[in-house]
């Protein structure tokens, strides 16, 4: 029997996760992906040294800020200790709560050990920089060389845990078909790598390191990640349209007739394809390499927007009513303030590291003034 149904009275359902969640998933993905990008150099690959410098800078800054965003997404942030008072090994979120501090600690320790030799050299500098260097170095002992590759390996192992838990946490939610797919964790990783290569390109430019080999390498990796994203998205779509996965077909059905989602899908497709092609094109043309940061900015946009679409837009897909749950970003801490605040905090972290840590290493061994001058020349 065909019938026309009109909703007369239905409840309004709000969004439960705020933009803080987007910030966390964005920063943590950049964190583990930049860790992977810095790993070859940390494990001894000499031709990777410049890339490692920039990637480690990106990695430590994002790793420091990501947990703040996560904490802020709790409605009761001061109760965070409940995670540790009531361990719950069957909940992905609880597993993450135990994994995250260990991961953050390992990455910070890794950054500390990598940057300590340069900090030692800066101890004699005057002013606040010298004072901080003297305090942070904790004596004049030599940094044990073996510790860096060991910590790198430990961080890599922990990062796979982070990749797994952040993905699985969302993918197990059967109540939201758009999340409930094993392809989601993979897509988090591939789009994360897209964003991470973009971040390294941008930082490579604005920090004045301006390494051409880093640009080329990141652009090739970006093209590869873009291709991987496309393959994952295509497989997900085919799984749904061929009824391989009930969850994906349900997901497609839930947004099929929605113009906003259609536009978003087209924009994602266009931006992803454009990015992949331009990254590949730039990586093969030496003259274009210095403009890699432009592709980098677009890649960061794509990686962030993907998370916004997955975490925020999916929540607006109504489950028990027709239409969609309206969402306008609030100005307060549950909206824009969270987004801008976290980006501000990240910028502050980058600037503090830049100010007190000679992270460029060997190149800046002379004085900080020389580094600044060098930056201007290269820029």
């Amino acid at each position: 029997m065909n019938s026309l149904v009109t909703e007369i009275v239905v409840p309004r359902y709000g969004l439960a996760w705020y933009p803080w969640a987007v910030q966390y998933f964005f920063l943590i993905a950049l964190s583990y992906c930049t860790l992977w990008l810095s790993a070859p150099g940390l494990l001894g690959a000499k031709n990777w040294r410049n890339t490692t410098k920039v990637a480690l800078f990106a990695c430590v800054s994002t790793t420091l800020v990501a947990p703040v965003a996560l904490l802020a997404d709790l409605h009761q942030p001061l109760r965070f200790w409940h995670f540790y008072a009531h361990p719950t090994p069957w909940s992905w979120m609880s597993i993450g709560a135990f994994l995250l501090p260990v991961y953050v600690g390992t990455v910070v320790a890794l950054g500390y050990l990598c940057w300590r030799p340069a900090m030692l050299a800066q101890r004699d500098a005057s002013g606040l920089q010298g004072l901080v260097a003297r305090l942070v170095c904790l004596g004049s002992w030599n940094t044990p060389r073996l510790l860096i590759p060991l910590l790198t390996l430990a961080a890599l192992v922990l990062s796979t845990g982070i990749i797994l838990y952040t993905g699985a946490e969302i993918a197990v939610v059967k109540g939201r078909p758009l999340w409930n797919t094993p392809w989601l964790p993979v897509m988090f990783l591939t789009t994360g790598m897209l964003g991470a290569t973009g971040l390294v390109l941008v930082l490579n430019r604005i920090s004045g390191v301006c390494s051409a080999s880093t640009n080329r390498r990141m652009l090739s990796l970006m093209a590869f990640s873009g291709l991987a994203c496309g393959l994952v998205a295509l497989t997900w779509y085919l799984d749904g349209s061929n009824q391989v996965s009930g969850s994906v077909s349900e997901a497609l059905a839930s947004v099929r007739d929605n113009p906003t989602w259609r536009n978003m899908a087209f924009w994602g497709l266009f931006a992803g394809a454009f990015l992949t092609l331009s990254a590949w094109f730039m990586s093969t043309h030496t003259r274009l390499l210095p403009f890699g940061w432009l592709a980098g900015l677009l890649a960061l946009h794509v990686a962030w927007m993907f998370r916004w679409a997955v975490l925020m837009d999916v929540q607006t897909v109504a489950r028990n009513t027709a239409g969609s749950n309206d969402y306008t970003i609030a100005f307060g801490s549950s909206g824009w303030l969270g987004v801008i605040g976290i980006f501000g905090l990240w910028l502050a972290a980058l600037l503090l590291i830049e100010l007190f840590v000679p992270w460029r290493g060997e190149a800046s061994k002379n004085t900080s003034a020389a580094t600044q001058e060098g930056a201007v020349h290269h820029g």
Partner: protein
Amino acid sequence: MDLIRRSLLGQLAKLTAGAALIPFASLAKAGINDQPVRREGDPTKRYGMLIDLRRCIGCQACTVSCHIENAAPLGNFRTIVSQFEVEDAESGDCATFMLPRLCNHCENPPCVPVCPVQATFQRQDGIVVVDSDRCVGCAYCVNACPYDARFINETTQTADKCTFCAHRLEANLLPACVESCVGGARIIGDMRDPHSQISQMIAEYRDQLMVLQPEKNTFPQVFYLGMDEQFTRRPQATVGIWDVRDQNGKEIGYEFSGD
């Protein structure tokens, strides 16, 4: 070993130091995202609800009494009656369909295993509750529930939901929604007791009962009698009158937006 002795040894083990290890044993058994062991509540009971839609007139007395009993913030509902106008495409005949919604106290509740601090748990009598003193407000459960039965209470900043009025059941009172139902459409009871009204009605109408979103394998324990199958899923409907939009399609007002 004969049965009696084996069970005796089993009992003894529970009485001795083994009892202290039982939580750990069950902890090791639960895989990731599996249902944890139920706690608290009467293990001899299993509460469920049967809603006789033929008797529901959509008066929202349940919605109001639940609000008063449980002090939910304005705009959030532990229970509400969704109402739809259904028009037959051929004949043009109209009817109103009423669908009371509340927590389904599922046999396989997806909201429980996701909770990272075990603040939300299922009691042995099947009722799913939230310990608001422990809840960290991560809202994972709110997203995990396919029925939108949960919300973040903006006053307590913790997860909130229908508890079958467990506090009233313990005082031998009916839940507020059942008590106030004008048509007697809501029947709550112990489904383990074969003489309870709900058990008898389940036995009588077994073939006609439906639950919401059965394909999610959550095994809801709120059963609907007189249900139209299309409403067990997300309804294919025109959006309701609460969506008040201006010419640009922007929402201009909402019943509960005023403080």
